[in-house]
């Protein structure tokens, strides 16, 4: 009854192509922004900010980058964490050693990662599909090795590089809320940019490559140029996300933060959240970020209130439940709802459009 499309007529193309054509969507988004910018930082606990909201933002950005490459342009990448690592170390080197202002360091990290990503995208001239995925895996492994073995970058195999105290133009960024704001502003700006991009000429070119690359080429879209562009943009996002991991999440750079498993986790976020959906990247990141917490909470609450599960579920099983559930969900979403949580969200919205009428 409330979620209505009737009475909403678009009289210009500009209105029809708006980000949120339905007024209720606009209101919802505004409410979300108010929540994000005002309510959360003022009322959320330190634990919530540091343990949930900041990683949620940072990994949403990473997932968004991977979604651009895999979900929109159709190029499977298994090395996304490697690119994040490039951004992380680039940020920390620029900020710590060369006193580059924080926003410039993050931007620069994005650019550098974009260049690296483009290089690893070059093989897409000749190789496709599974073979290209393998070359992205090569990127992950080679980047890991270079970072750990080039002393100038990391200081050695097992070392951690702490980032200097964060500040920008005199503003000291040392509380969790302040770090949250930094991440929030950057993520919102980049998300809007991404949303515009995927609805544009470039986004359509990418999707045409994903859906039917032979036809796409015949229509006039240079496969090579747009695939490399997808790598470049995707890596830019990964680089900034990696920089944020160091700056506002962990506070330090260590190659262990960007291991291969993370690449798969981010891929899982994209699959579960919804491939080819900006919203899906956020939903997937949220899902994966909350999953371990949810498992812990439900098992301990069931144990306390219903039946002592620790007899049935050994500690080993509990510890590994996350992996099992993660794998199961990937399969579930691929089989049942390939467009992920985002599609589920739209289905709910569609249902609400008619509610309370049956059809």
């Amino acid at each position: 009854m409330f979620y209505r499309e009737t009475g909403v007529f678009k009289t210009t193309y500009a209105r029809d192509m708006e980000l949120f054509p339905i007024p209720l969507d606009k209101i919802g988004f505004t409410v979300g922004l108010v929540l994000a910018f005002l309510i959360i930082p003022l009322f959320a606990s330190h634990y919530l900010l540091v343990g949930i909201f900041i990683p949620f933002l940072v990994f949403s950005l990473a997932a968004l980058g991977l979604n651009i490459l895999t979900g929109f342009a159709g190029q499977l990448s298994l090395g996304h964490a490697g690119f994040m690592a490039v951004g992380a170390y680039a940020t920390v080197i620029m900020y710590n050693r060369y006193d580059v202002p924080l926003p410039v360091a993050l931007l620069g990290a994005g650019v550098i990662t974009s260049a690296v990503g483009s290089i690893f995208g070059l093989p897409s001239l000749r190789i496709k599909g599974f073979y290209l995925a393998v070359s992205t895996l090569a990127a992950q492994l080679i980047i890991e090795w270079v970072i750990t073995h080039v002393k100038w970058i990391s200081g050695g195999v097992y070392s951690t590089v702490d980032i200097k105290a964060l500040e920008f133009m005199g503003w000291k960024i040392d509380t969790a809320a302040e770090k949250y704001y930094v991440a929030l502003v950057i993520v919102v700006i980049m998300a809007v940019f991404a949303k515009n991009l995927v609805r544009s000429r470039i986004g359509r070119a990418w999707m045409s490559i994903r859906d039917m690359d032979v036809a796409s080429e015949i229509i006039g879209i240079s496969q090579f140029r747009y695939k490399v562009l997808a790598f470049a943009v995707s890596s830019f996002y990964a680089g900034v996300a990696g920089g944020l991991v160091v700056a506002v999440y962990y506070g330090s750079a260590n190659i262990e933060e960007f291991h291969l498993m993370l690449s798969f986790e981010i891929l899982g976020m994209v699959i579960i959240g919804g491939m080819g959906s900006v919203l899906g990247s956020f939903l997937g990141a949220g899902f994966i970020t909350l999953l371990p917490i949810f498992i812990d909470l439900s098992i301990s609450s069931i144990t306390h209130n219903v039946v002592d599960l620790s007899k049935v579920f050994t500690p080993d099983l509990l510890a590994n439940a996350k992996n099992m559930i993660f794998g199961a969900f990937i399969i579930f979403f691929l089989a049942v709802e390939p467009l992920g949580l985002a599609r589920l969200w739209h289905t709910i919205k569609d249902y609400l459009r008619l509610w309370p009428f049956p059809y």
Partner: protein
Amino acid sequence: MSDTVLFAVELTVSGLLVGLMYSLVALGFVLIYKASGIFNFAQGDMTFFAALGMAAFGALIPMWVGIILMVGAMVVLAVAIERIVLKPLVARPPLVLFMATIGIAFFLQGLAQGIWGTQPRGLSLGVTDHTYEIGGMFVSSLDIVGAVVAGVLVVVLVWFFQKTKTGRALRAVSDDHEAALSVGIPLRKAWGITWAIAGIVAIVAGALWGTRVGVQASLALLALKALPVLIVGGIDSIPGAIIGGLIIGAAENLAEGLIGPAVGGGIKNFFPYLLALIVLGVRPYGLFGREIIERV
């Protein structure tokens, strides 16, 4: 000069022996790809699951009982995968199936460690480890056993695919699902059989590897070593898996031994991939792979 040459030869030989083990894992991949067109990323975790299971059993029951139990487990696993993962995803593009196998990989790893714990375990096959000296080089008896087993397995599998009715039917399935169905080959049964066979290959590979290096979580990462093997050898070629494994094993060992010390080591981690990239640059479908021709 002669010392370096001897060193290089030693590196090559031990590399070849390791490479044969890579081939075993790669073989599992090739089998499933040949029979269902699916690239099974979970092969490494299947190997880990098998090895960990046998190591855990080995402490309680005779090894041969453990192996039989594990074969049974693999068959059950194959049926479960076919029913829960493959059937719903039957008409989907290969990349989607690949991603589904990533899901299976995570699930299996969690399951294996959930049941049997995360402590590294030793595995004993009843083969004592002697070191033989041949022509100035050292070769371990385990390696030799491994090589022999691998060789036998390859011969058996090649014979199976070329000469038996079931094997030929499976090859037909991989080429064209619809055509195979129309000739009366029960697709799902074929897939179940293939995955079970791949599971058995995983048991063999897991047993040999586990004996060699012990069973720990990094065993699951064998899948990562197998990928360059498949690229070099071609993803649908059984002999290619062997040759690819040998090449990768020898090359990575040589690179690590000769170049490694100069750059701080760790070359083994990425060198196979570098090699694979170079091969792809020259032959985008691998050395022995078949080109996929798309109809417009």
